[in-house]
């Protein structure tokens, strides 16, 4: 074993070697099978990419391409079969749930509560990992929660019930809870799935602003080609458990490649901003 890779096993050392890189996904693979004796039902082939603070990474691909699995691996919820994922030099899967929640916030597709809660109660839950289990919330926690709600433009929702607000409002409150965690890394799984177009733009604008202001590293899973093109600094293109390309949208958005991945005829144009725009062509 070379001295270089031995050095890199030391978290602090590898953080120094990595320089400005916050999230480092290194040759990560995964296999899922219902039963260890059988062939895996789903595999994720070795995937690598890196992300800096303030950067938005979009994991893009059709259904069953492995994008949510990759997100779960990054979140530390799954253990990779091989490779490793480092956040500021620490292997995410090896952290305790508490430490992980202090550094990684996850916004999931669905968030249904068993019993009703007010928006502020929900957002305060983001402070849980920073306090002891039985401690009552401090003034600081309340301030951070209020700030988080204000940052996503949801200060007015504070006293509303979670089951009585619209999908777009709910998604904002869920994002506010993630912000209340004060994470280094913000992970979102299809955050725009049930939102109308105005709410989608609103959420992604908020996300871009937050990434820039708070220096979060943001990883978003999506199948919305145009939203990824518009908002992402980097795109990780996935298909059937394989990572095909990693790079800025302008490099990834090639007509033949996207047509092959998404199995549909489409056209790609580049606007004045330099960001690509995709039009799906109807079959006729």
């Amino acid at each position, binding site marked *: 074993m070379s001295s270089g890779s031995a050095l890199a096993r030391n978290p602090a050392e590898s953080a120094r070697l990595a320089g400005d890189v916050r999230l480092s996904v290194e040759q990560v693979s995964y296999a899922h099978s219902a039963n260890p004796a059988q062939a895996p039902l789903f595999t994720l082939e070795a995937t690598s990419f890196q992300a800096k603070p303030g950067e938005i990474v979009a994991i893009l691909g059709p259904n069953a391409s492995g994008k949510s699995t990759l997100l779960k691996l990054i979140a530390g919820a799954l253990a990779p079969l091989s490779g490793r994922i480092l956040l500021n030099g620490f292997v995410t899967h090896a952290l305790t749930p508490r430490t992980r929640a202090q550094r990684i916030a996850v916004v999931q597709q669905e968030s249904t*509560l*068993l*019993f009703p809660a007010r928006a*502020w*109660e929900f957002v305060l839950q983001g402070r849980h990992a920073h306090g002891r289990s039985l401690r009552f919330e401090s003034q600081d926690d309340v301030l951070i929660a*209020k700030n988080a709600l204000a940052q996503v433009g949801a200060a007015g929702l504070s006293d509303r019930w979670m089951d009585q607000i619209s999908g777009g409002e709910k998604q904002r409150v869920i994002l506010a809870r993630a912000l209340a965690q004060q994470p280094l890394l913000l992970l979102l799984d299809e955050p725009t799935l049930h939102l109308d177009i105005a709410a989608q733009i609103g959420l992604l604008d908020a996300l871009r602003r937050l990434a820039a202001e708070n220096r979060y590293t943001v990883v978003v899973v999506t199948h919305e080609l145009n939203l990824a093109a518009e908002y992402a600094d980097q795109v990780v293109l996935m298909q059937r458990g394989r990572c095909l390309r990693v790079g800025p949208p302008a490099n990834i958005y090639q007509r033949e490649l996207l047509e092959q991945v998404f199995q549909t005829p489409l056209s790609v144009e580049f606007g004045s901003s330099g960001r690509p725009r995709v039009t799906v062509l109807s079959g006729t």
Partner: protein
Amino acid sequence: MRPLTLRRLVLQCSILVVILFVVVVIALKFGAVPVSLYALGRDLLRVVFGQSSQISSDYGLIVVNIRLPRILLGIIVGASLSVAGTSFQALLRNPLADPYVLGVSMGASLGSILALIVEPHLTISPLLAALLTPLGAFLGAAATITAVYFLGRREGQIDSATLLLGGVIISSFLSAIIMFLMNTLSGNLRGLSFWLMGDLSTPLHKSAYWFLGIGFLLATGAIYTTAADLNMLLAGEKEAMHLGVDVPRVRLVVYIAASLLTGLAVSVSGAIGYVGLIVPHAMRFIFGSDHRTLLPTAALCGAIALVFADTLARTVVAPTEVSVGAVTAVVGAPLFIYLLRRRFP
């Protein structure tokens, strides 16, 4: 934004303590033999000052030796079942979960009966023998909740309907075994209706109250350390994990402690239903779903509800009485149907 403070929590609990006191006084006063409030106060003060020997009247004996222990039992059993119900509802993410509905109470009943059957054949000290019934009840409860949990899981997720059906089926299976055992074995096992319906009329040895009280406090304390985690579990195990909850640890602590609470309650009172179902909902309706408030208020309200129900059980058909389990079922079953209709439209 009104985050929970210790002051508000204490205030909310104090209100319930006052109500509990009033209900206890009512329960002491009413019964087959009426007692005046004056006599009641005089006799209670004598008990407090350790002058029990001065209580000579028959009325005093009824109050101190019959009603008071029964009320104490009602307080501990009601509180235990409510805390267990609250915990099961949060952990299984099911608003209809409760030790009785899930079959956990039947498991505890069967465990108690088996312990009672085995006990005479063992040569152990009387103290250990006394612990055998609650131990059997705990093991029965823990085994049942484990079985129901795995029955209710589909593709790694808990399925509400399957879970409840699993509980109902296990419950009827276990009660069939209980009936079989009761019919084939005679001996000092108490009546069949005690194990299937539950009542608080069985007098216990004085040390048993201490044992029950300490067991209740330990188990409830253990669950209370996870109160904030339970709040997050309301959104699901995955979300809770992402918010920093050590889900397997919380699950283990709460299942063991809730099984212990159910086991303790059932070993002395049989299977009393619906207290653990209805009380947490009432408290959630009044105080919200924060478990840091919900657990202590549900404990107090469970005590209030069961003491009240037991007073009804003693008085509605006096001088005979009905099982308190029948009273809670008459009130609880319609409320269960209401909740069922509301949650699964």
